[in-house]
């Protein structure tokens, strides 16, 4: 039997999603500015795109709070529920919009325009890269402003890491931060993975969060990547 490892319970993490919890940094300043401008948007839709963990969902939540709009995942959009979704008159946020069935999205866009409501479409990539078959939809979306959430700079990474640690009721020591930042891949996903592993592994092994421990976690992340 090789070294056995206790698997820990994965408690759900209460991610703080309030407007005060969102960290504004250069890489997302533009998107914040656009959201602040609502309802003063030139077109019926605003497209927000960026990699996983970039804060799109958080921004969506904030906008929904402000606008009182509902929130739906792109996969769940169907043509018949479009009228229902826009019933309230507050607009609609669509997460993973690139997964919407094209005709449903087209229908949604048109109805929003008719009823003077705004749509916030969030996706991993800009609509220009969605490979849209329906030409009319493609042209409409092309005309809408789209804002990218850029890859984070070091300050943003640090702030994100701190926040995610805090969400899990853990403490990020300056030593660990200083050690990890230069070594971690510059992506929101990498931060998320690192924090999740730190939490679960330390719980599993009942270990304190130290630099050597963080180093082990990073090694593990490397191995996982290669394994894929």
């Amino acid at each position, binding site marked *: 039997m090789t070294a056995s490892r206790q698997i820990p319970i994965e408690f759900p993490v209460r991610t703080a999603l309030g407007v005060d919890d969102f960290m504004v940094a250069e890489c997302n300043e533009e998107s914040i500015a656009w959201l602040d401008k609502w309802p003063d948007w030139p077109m019926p839709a605003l497209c927000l795109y960026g990699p996983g963990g970039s804060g799109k969902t958080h921004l969506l939540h904030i906008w929904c709070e402000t606008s009182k709009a509902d929130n739906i995942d792109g996969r769940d959009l169907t043509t018949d529920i479009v009228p229902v979704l826009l019933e309230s008159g507050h607009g609609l946020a669509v997460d993973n919009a690139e997964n919407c069935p094209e005709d449903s999205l087209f229908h949604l866009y048109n109805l929003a325009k008719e009823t003077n409501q705004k749509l916030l479409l969030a996706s991993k990539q800009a609509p220009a890269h969605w490979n849209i078959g329906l030409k009319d939809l493609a042209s409409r979306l092309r005309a809408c402003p789209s804002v990218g959430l850029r890859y984070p700079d070091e300050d943003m990474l640090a702030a994100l890491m701190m926040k995610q640690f*805090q969400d899990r009721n853990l*403490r990020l020591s*300056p030593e660990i931060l200083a050690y990890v930042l230069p070594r971690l891949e510059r992506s929101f996903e990498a931060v998320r993975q690192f924090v999740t592993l730190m939490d679960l592994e330390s719980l599993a092994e009942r270990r304190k969060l130290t630099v050597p421990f963080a180093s082990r976690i990073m090694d593990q992340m490397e191995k996982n990547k290669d394994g894929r």
Partner: protein
Amino acid sequence: MFDEPEIADETNVALLSPRDSLSVKGHEANEQLLLDAWNSGKLHHAWLFTGPKGIGKASLGYQFARFILAGGGEGGGLFGDQPDSLKISAEHPVYRRMMSGGHSDFQILEKGMMNPDTKRVAENDIPVAIARKAIEFIRLTPAESDWRVILVDAADDLNRNAANALLKVLEEPPARAIFILISHAPGRLLPTIKSRCRKLTFKSIPDESVSELLVSQYPELGNEDAHALARLSEGSIGKAMELQDNGGLDLFRMVVSLLSHPQDLSLTKLHSLADTLSRKDAKENYIVFRNLIDWWFKRLLKILAGDHMPKPIFAEEYMAIEACKALMPLGKWLEAADLVNERLWQTEAPSNLDRRQVVIDAFLTLETLAQGR
């Protein structure tokens, strides 16, 4: 005047223990700042009081702690006005219980506490085991007040691990928990701790200013006396005023006079001193006198140990120091200081001896020692 507080042990260098001082004079600006912070409803959770030692930082720290634990004190009006002062009277239950160590929502961290791991007193620093107890304390809800207060006197005494442990809760404090950190040398504190705290600077007032303030407060006070008091209070206007209110300078003069010939005490002078202190209304004066003796012995010992000679309070004091230096070596003076201080505390429980008797006895003990018997 004040209720005589019960102090279990005595390690104060200051003329009055910070825990006792009911009101802290000389730092009104800082007091107002704290009051404003409280009244704003957004009180920051960690405060760092910095400045030279002995000028009243810890005193204001305790006062603020009392104020918070009393839910904003008594300064407000009947109609829910905001408090206009940090003062809490000695009669207030919070005051008593903080003094006795029996307030369940207050935790002090300082040198000389019992280390729960080693079961020994940590004389020289604040070890991590004690910091951990404070953290466990802050992780529990308050039992009496709406708030919890931790006072660290002084943050400079936290050892490396204790500082790191404390940093954890400074970064993620629970709601309604306040940390008050006292520091005499903030340059040496962990920058991460400093960054979490709002800083409150305390300045010691130059002797010149203290004596000026004294003369303005006490018009009957002569310039020379005012200067002597300023030097005696080491830059703290609060202490200077407390001394003046309790005849401290006269007492000090009598003491110096006696200590100019410790091996051959003037009995007249001794009895005169004892009489002064044994009067019914002299309870407070006695405490000031006892603290002065303690302070002066420490001053003498430092000089004997090689410290340079500080500015004398007045000429006779300088001569008394010289006389004592010539009489006995450091070791003997250490012994003498202990004996005298011990005797002077016998006015408290359990001995409860008469003040007069205690004063005479203390000095006669010194004389015996000085005579080499």
